[in-house]
């Protein structure tokens, strides 16, 4: 059942424009989770130790599960989570470009996971504060697993940052390379201001970005890492402008599905 049908929904989501805006927000979020989950899954069998291999693979499964829950809510008439995940061209995806980048080394993977997990925490807290009880409940469900994702990426970030010059250098390089794209997680989805004005969303993307920065900066500082200067938000992903990495990822991810799009699993 769509959460939209909840008894408390009409009051805050009265008009179709607001429903559309919420759907767009959830779709972008689902796309983030799906694409990052897929990137994490590429480490299966290759992570630095067997324990982290299993843990990151589990996290990948968690993210795919979250994507499914969010797609169920974002789906319009005639759409299904499977078709949304496997049946769209790259330009229809609304994920931030941060999550589509190739994995790079372990430092890049951990820094990206950490930056993303911190952003997800901000986003979940906003949804959990929603006056729409059904959405707040969904946020609390997702938060249970996300709490562990943050633990995993944070202990790894901490160990890599303190391990030695080579390791610290790689972490700093990753941070410098990813910072702007991480900020671009907070590009406002279309129609967001209407949701904020109606009280359906406790804080818009700009406010979420402020909360994210004030959460990540002290932690990076404590680890002796340099916070890169913001060079302005590199936008694109949220409006469907992606890097070639996404097309390559989707080509691989959808190869089985494309062989028989009507197959039932």
């Amino acid at each position, binding site marked *: 059942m769509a959460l939209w049908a909840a008894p408390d929904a009409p009051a805050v989501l009265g008009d179709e424009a607001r429903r559309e805006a919420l759907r767009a927000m959830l779709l972008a979020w689902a796309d983030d989770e799906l694409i990052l989950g897929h990137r994490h899954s590429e480490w299966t069998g290759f992570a630095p130790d067997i324990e*982290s291999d299993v843990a990151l693979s589990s996290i990948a499964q968690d993210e795919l599960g979250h994507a499914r829950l969010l797609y169920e809510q974002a789906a319009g008439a005639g759409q299904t989570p499977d078709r949304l995940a496997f049946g769209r061209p790259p330009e229809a995806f609304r994920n931030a470009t941060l999550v589509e980048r190739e994995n790079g080394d372990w430092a890049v993977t951990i820094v990206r996971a950490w930056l993303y997990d911190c952003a997800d925490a901000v986003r979940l807290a906003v949804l959990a504060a929603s006056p729409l009880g059904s959405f707040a409940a969904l946020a609390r469900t997702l938060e249970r697993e996300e709490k562990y994702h943050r633990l995993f990426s944070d202990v790894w970030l901490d160990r890599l940052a303190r391990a030695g010059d080579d390791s610290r250098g790689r972490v700093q390089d990753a941070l410098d390379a990813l910072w702007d794209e991480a900020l671009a997680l907070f590009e406002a989805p279309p129609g967001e201001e209407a949701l904020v004005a109606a009280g359906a969303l406790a804080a818009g993307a700009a406010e979420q970005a402020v909360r994210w920065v004030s959460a990540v900066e002290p932690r990076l500082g404590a680890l002796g890492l340099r916070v890169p200067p913001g060079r302005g938000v590199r936008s694109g992903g949220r409006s469907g402008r992606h890097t070639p990495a996404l097309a390559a990822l989707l080509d691989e991810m959808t190869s089985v599905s494309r062989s028989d799009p009507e197959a039932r699993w």
Partner: protein
Amino acid sequence: MNLAEITPGAEGVFAVFRQETKNDPHVHVGDVHAPDAEMALVLAKEQFARRDPCVNLWVVRYADIAATSYRDADMLEPSTDKSYRFGGSYREQQRVYRRR
């Protein structure tokens, strides 16, 4: 007697103990490699708490475990029939060991 030998190379290995409910004992379920206890706990969660119920995890560095030696295992075998000591059929004992 060789008590409390430390297994060489065990510094980076932690024994993991899982507790199913708050009333259960922590049971040794396996090991993880980790540089420190915090990392060991984070890694143990996905290795040992993702399939079975779990409310709490312990990790213990192998280097911190004092153990008897398998070479002396014979001292753990009674010399005469002591089956009268076995408490297996005492329901009260089972209840105490495994409160549900």
